[in-house]
């Protein structure tokens, strides 16, 4: 007959089972403490916290056992296991301001694990100021000139300098954010980790062929709703993740001029796939993409004559975004929009910008119908092929109406050449 366990043994087992709830072991008698320690070791439950608990008792027998077994505190933080290795990510920042100290320090909790590519706007004269503690590479005008040639380097001035970062990166995922944004806090006051969210968006499937009314079905606590066809539930790869902005939303100059007090304070807790065939304005302020899938489609091409150093004074990202969306739709890839949010700081004068951006506003009226009707050939099976074909169509159809578009088409062609050259080097 097997001897039943003693009451003491059962108690120690129970204590082991509830170790996480115990905050103080000092009242436990020495011999029991030792037994508990040994069983903890055997059960594989000796964590940093539990070790501290035993050491705090100050009991000699336990302490000498710890020393004898050479048990050490873990110094390096244990990194969370995800499917994405940090090494697959580059964070690209276009620096339009020379002093990046405050900006980078605000982002440190989120960015410090990753490699950063900082591209200095070639028009910026002052030296960049960058704080310690980051793993980064900085690229300036001379680097751009060297890689792109001085005639093509015009492509990379102003906000478009970030595209140089996309060009020379070797990573699978790129996350890009403007240098006048800082981390936002969600409805619970928790700091938003835009990298984690963008990576989740890019690494989980997108559902562009049928709208799910509960938004992202792959999020915890959600799923496909009744009536969603089963054959579409595996989704497609996500090529682009578009984040949003609290405080200063990405409005155009007329809207912001009309409503100077309007700040975006609504935190919408959703990510959704923008359906295939639907176009949208892609903002370059806070976005991420799968470089392997769509890299060449994010391109610096449409530059306004009066383009300035405020987002209100540009449409380069809107043009690029339309190209990406059309290409993703053609290649059967998904584009997501929604979380994560960044907090965008206020700067600039919308009314002043109105004088410059009206041109962009006018252009959009031609641009949108064009992108809505463009059909890419079946033979275009890569993002590169698509860009080449698109450039041709832009030249033929839009180039006649405004020299701006002819220049954009040329820029697209230059860009693909450059992309191919850099990838093969």
């Amino acid at each position, binding site marked *: 007959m097997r001897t039943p366990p003693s009451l003491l043994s059962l108690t120690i087992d129970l204590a082991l089972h509830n170790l996480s709830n115990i905050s103080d072991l000092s009242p436990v008698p020495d011999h029991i403490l030792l037994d508990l320690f040994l069983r903890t070791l055997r059960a594989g439950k000796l964590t940093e916290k539990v070790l501290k608990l035993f050491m705090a008792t100050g009991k000699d027998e336990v302490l000498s056992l710890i020393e004898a077994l050479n048990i050490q505190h873990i110094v390096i933080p244990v990194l969370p296991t995800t499917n994405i290795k940090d090494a697959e990510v580059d964070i690209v920042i276009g620096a339009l301001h020379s002093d990046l100290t405050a900006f980078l320090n605000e982002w440190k909790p989120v960015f410090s694990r990753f490699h950063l590519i900082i591209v200095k706007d070639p028009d910026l004269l002052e030296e960049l100021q960058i704080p310690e503690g980051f793993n980064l590479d900085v690229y300036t005008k001379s680097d751009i000139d060297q890689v792109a040639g001085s005639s093509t380097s015009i492509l990379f001035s102003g906000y478009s300098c970030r595209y140089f970062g996309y060009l020379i990166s070797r990573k699978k995922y790129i996350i890009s954010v403007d240098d006048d944004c800082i981390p936002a806090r969600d409805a619970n006051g928790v700091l938003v980790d835009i990298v984690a969210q963008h990576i989740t968006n890019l690494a989980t499937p997108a559902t562009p062929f049928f*709208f799910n009314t509960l938004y992202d079905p792959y999020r915890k606590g*959600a*799923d496909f*709703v009744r009536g*969603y066809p089963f054959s579409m539930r595996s989704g497609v790869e996500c090529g682009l993740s578009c984040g949003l902005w609290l405080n200063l939303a990405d409005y155009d100059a007329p809207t912001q001029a009309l409503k100077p007090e309007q700040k975006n304070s609504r935190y919408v807790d*959703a990510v959704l796939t923008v359906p*295939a065939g639907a176009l*949208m304005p892609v903002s370059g302020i806070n976005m991420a993409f799968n470089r392997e899938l769509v890299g060449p489609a994010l391109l610096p091409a449409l530059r306004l004559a009066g383009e300035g150093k405020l987002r209100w004074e540009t449409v380069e990202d809107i043009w690029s975004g339309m190209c990406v969306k059309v290409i993703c739709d053609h290649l059967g890839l998904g584009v997501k929009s929604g979380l994560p949010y960044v907090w965008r700081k206020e700067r600039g004068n919308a009314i002043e910008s109105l004088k410059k951006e009206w041109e962009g506003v006018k252009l959009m*009226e031609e641009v949108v119908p064009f992108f809505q009707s463009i059909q890419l050939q079946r033979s275009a099976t890569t993002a590169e092929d698509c860009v080449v074909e698109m450039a041709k169509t832009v030249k033929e159809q839009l180039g006649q109406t405004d020299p701006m578009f002819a220049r954009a088409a040329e820029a697209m062609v230059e860009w693909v050449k450059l992309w191919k050259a850099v990838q093969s080097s």
Partner: protein
Amino acid sequence: MASTEASVAPTPLLKDELDIVIPTIRNLDFLEMWRPFFQPYHLIIVQDGDPSKTINVPEGFDYELYNRNDINRILGPKASCISFKDSACRCFGYMVSKKKYIFTIDDDCFVAKDPSGKAINALEQHIKNILSPSTPHFFNTLYDPYREGADFVRGYPFSLREGAKTAVSHGLWLNIPDYDAPTQLVKPRERNTRYVDAVMTIPKGTLFPMCGMNLTFDRELIGPAMYFGLMGDGQPIGRYDDMWAGWCMKVICDHLGLGVKTGLPYIWHSKASNPFVNLKKEYKGIFWQEEIIPFFQSAVLPKDCTSVQKCYLELSKQVKEKLAKVDPYFDKLADAMVTWIEAWDELNPAGAGASAPLPNGQKA
């Protein structure tokens, strides 16, 4: 140009322009919780199941009630298009209403609370949604630009900022999510606890699963397209009534340039139906869906279909041509779609004025 905190105009009640249609087979106890929000409105109760049973309507509501006998009496042979023993029968209520707007809700849906703990007036939000334009031609990344505190983002073409008329406002549900039977079986404990503070337009050309639990539409703009099909008793399929209506409706809205919104408001869905019963009802639908979806995705309506009825009749023709080979059920359904339009036009002759309100309980 500095603006002070603009006072937002109160949402109009629309109490003489909106009917609330409720299908029920059990009771209407849930109305007590909705009383503060629903009492000003006229209710149309469609009683499913045994017509000899008396459904008690709580005191103080202005209503008309129809049971199966009434449906048979009013429609005669055309009553065959109205489902029996399925909440699809609710579309009879749409047909007999004389109002511009319909709000329909299930009898197991209660008032939800927003994250601040405030009770949500779902009807008020639906009215806001339906009275403001939609944006089906270009997606706005800040969702509904007509909401307070939101707007069109940079890059949104100005020529599209007037938007389109909103035909449908599709609300959502907290607590028991509207999952299909297989999903319910795999995740019996999952509850929808995420309050997504957004209303958005579903882009033109995109289909979605429309749920009839919490829905508002403009009867004048899209009413005849809201036929909930042949379901329930004597039919091979159930729980696809609102889906079918949603797909027909969306194709027609896209064709006519009308908008469909989804998102807020939330209601609290309290009852989880039996997943095994659901599976039996949905079973065929799960397979048929795979043919139905491509059909709707590729459906093209000719230019001369300029009214909802014409569009719907054209769709019924296409259903007969292309889906009848999937199952003879679709042949019957196509016929029922035609019957529905005939009945609709009979009860809603063009140019007829609103009839005088009837005393409670009395039927048309």
